[in-house]
């Protein structure tokens, strides 16, 4: 059976090109402002200088960190040696932590994205009993601080035998109230109601309608929520801190801080150069993800973003 799109939907794309020239004309009227560019550049400098510091200092030895200027290179360029040492220190535990983090992100953020997408679609397109209650409770949950959840979650999971296992990090990561909110606003604007009605009249089931018609339309929103839940899970520190005692299950965040704290313990070896290099390696995947998926998250936020 073939689904026939609503005529107005088919006509919509044709109308888009007509708007482009007018917008371009309006923008061209605005003169480029060197002063405004220079002032905004100060903000860019503020954003990027710490990252530059990180790259520069990841190329220094432990001794070089103390003997050279922070924003310039030391005579001894040790970046690749540091990378090798970071990956092999303590039987290669950094690699283990990286794999743990990927596990938490794929299962936790992936699951959170799936649940938020399904739930946001339901809130936007179905008028089901209890809908307003669901929405109020979930949005109210955004205001619940992590601390109210962390201790009792730990105690609950302890009784269930889940602490000190990957599930202790993955399961709480599955819920993103903000992700649900984002998908709700995105689905409301991205999916025309007429399209769903046409599909239903043709006899398409709800699941097939969702997978074949709605998912492609929701793609920018899905990528946006995926990126934000990835950041939240990759950034996770408090939850693993209370849930995990075994360093073998640490994410990178806990591992880096453990290395940093090592210098403060009696007889502990100071390895700041590995903390810095490990930090650089930790941020590269997320930076790459944001850069490569720019088109999606920018259009995702613009279309489905915050509008009351």
């Amino acid at each position: 059976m073939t689904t026939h799109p609503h005529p107005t939907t088919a006509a919509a794309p044709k109308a888009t090109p007509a708007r482009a020239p007018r917008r371009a004309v309006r923008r061209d009227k605005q003169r480029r402002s060197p002063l405004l560019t220079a002032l905004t550049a100060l903000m860019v400098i503020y954003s990027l200088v710490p990252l530059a510091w990180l790259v520069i200092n990841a190329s220094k030895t432990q001794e070089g960190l103390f003997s050279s200027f922070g924003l310039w290179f030391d005579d001894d360029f040790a970046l690749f040696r540091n990378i090798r040492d970071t990956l092999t220190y303590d039987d290669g535990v950094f690699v283990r932590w990286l794999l743990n983090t990927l596990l938490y992100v794929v299962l936790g953020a992936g699951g959170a994205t799936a649940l938020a997408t399904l739930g946001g679609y339901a809130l936007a397109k179905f008028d089901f009993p209890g809908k307003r209650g669901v929405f109020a409770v979930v949005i109210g949950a955004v205001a619940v601080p992590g601390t109210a959840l962390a201790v009792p979650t730990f105690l609950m999971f302890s009784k269930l035998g889940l602490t000190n296992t990957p599930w202790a990090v993955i399961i709480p990561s599955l819920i993103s109230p903000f992700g649900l909110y984002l998908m709700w606003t995105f689905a409301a604007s991205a999916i025309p109601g007429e399209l769903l009605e046409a599909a239903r009249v043709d006899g398409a089931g709800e699941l097939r309608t969702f997978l074949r018609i709605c998912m492609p339309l929701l793609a920018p929103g899905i990528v946006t929520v995926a990126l934000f839940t990835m950041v939240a899970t990759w950034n996770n520190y408090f939850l693993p801190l209370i849930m995990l005692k075994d360093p073998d299950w640490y994410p990178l965040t806990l591992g880096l801080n453990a290395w940093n704290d090592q210098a403060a313990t009696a007889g502990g070896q100071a390895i700041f150069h590995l903390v810095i290099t490990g930090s650089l390696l930790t941020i590269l995947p997320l930076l790459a993800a944001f850069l490569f998926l720019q088109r999606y998250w920018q259009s995702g936020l613009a279309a489905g973003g915050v509008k009351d």
Partner: protein
Amino acid sequence: MTVLAPPTISRTGQAAPRPARRRRSWTGWAFVGPFMTVFAFVFVAPIAYAIYLSVFRTRLIGGTSFVGLENYQQVFTDPQFWSATWRVTLFLLVQVPIMLFLALLVALAIDSGRLYGKAFFRVAVFMPYAVPAVVATLMWGFMYGSRFGLVGNINDTFGVSLPDPLSPDLVLASIGNIVTWEFVGYNMLIFYSALQVVPKSLYEAAELDGASQLQVIRSVKLPAIKGALLIATIFSIIGSFQLFNEPNILQSLAPNAITTYFTPNMYAYSLSFSGQQYNYSATVAIVMGILTMIVAYAVQLRGTRKDR
């Protein structure tokens, strides 16, 4: 695949839509159900368990006993709790306005179309959001330091004596700077995305009236993104009350400046995992959660009231 049964002759016309509506109604729960199931497990159950814990007390002699509201009375007379709460309130009152103001300035600058290299500005300012709080705190913590930090470098190179950012007097402001650096880009993107969906007709009407750039900003752009401003403010307030990662990680670099009750979250964590006082910790968490929701709700109420 289900085909709607045609209505029988005896039924009135109004009867026809009911089966479809009822089917849609319950189908919504099939989509939102998975989210709500996990939500109940990781949000509702821990809150209920925390409330349960807060009305009991465990002693070495006598075991666990019901104490009603005694734990709450203890929180409200606890100088460490109020010290922590006052500190995050001060943090909130200073850091949130600065961060949101900077984010708004950059969003307006990028949206104005008067920058050279607009796409670069947007991505560059957003980049710190992809950096985990652990890495951001380690980076800035090292830069703040007098050993191999920039502050130490500048002191040595120029023969000056800059104030120590990790001293007890300045450490809260230093943490505020780290959080600002982390989130100004994220908030900029929220504002910028909201600006992107402002109808072009509003700009054209303003231009016909000969409005200046500042007048367009005041009369068109700011009112249009009021919703985004409100949401960003509420999220920032919630984040401030939940402050934990940055002071916790900085503690090893500034042990004399950051106590175990530096923030409410750190206090609850310390009570649980250093002091094994789970019941009292749960009570602190609940009180902090309620305070956060009261403030967030008050801000939201004030924000929406101005619309009337």
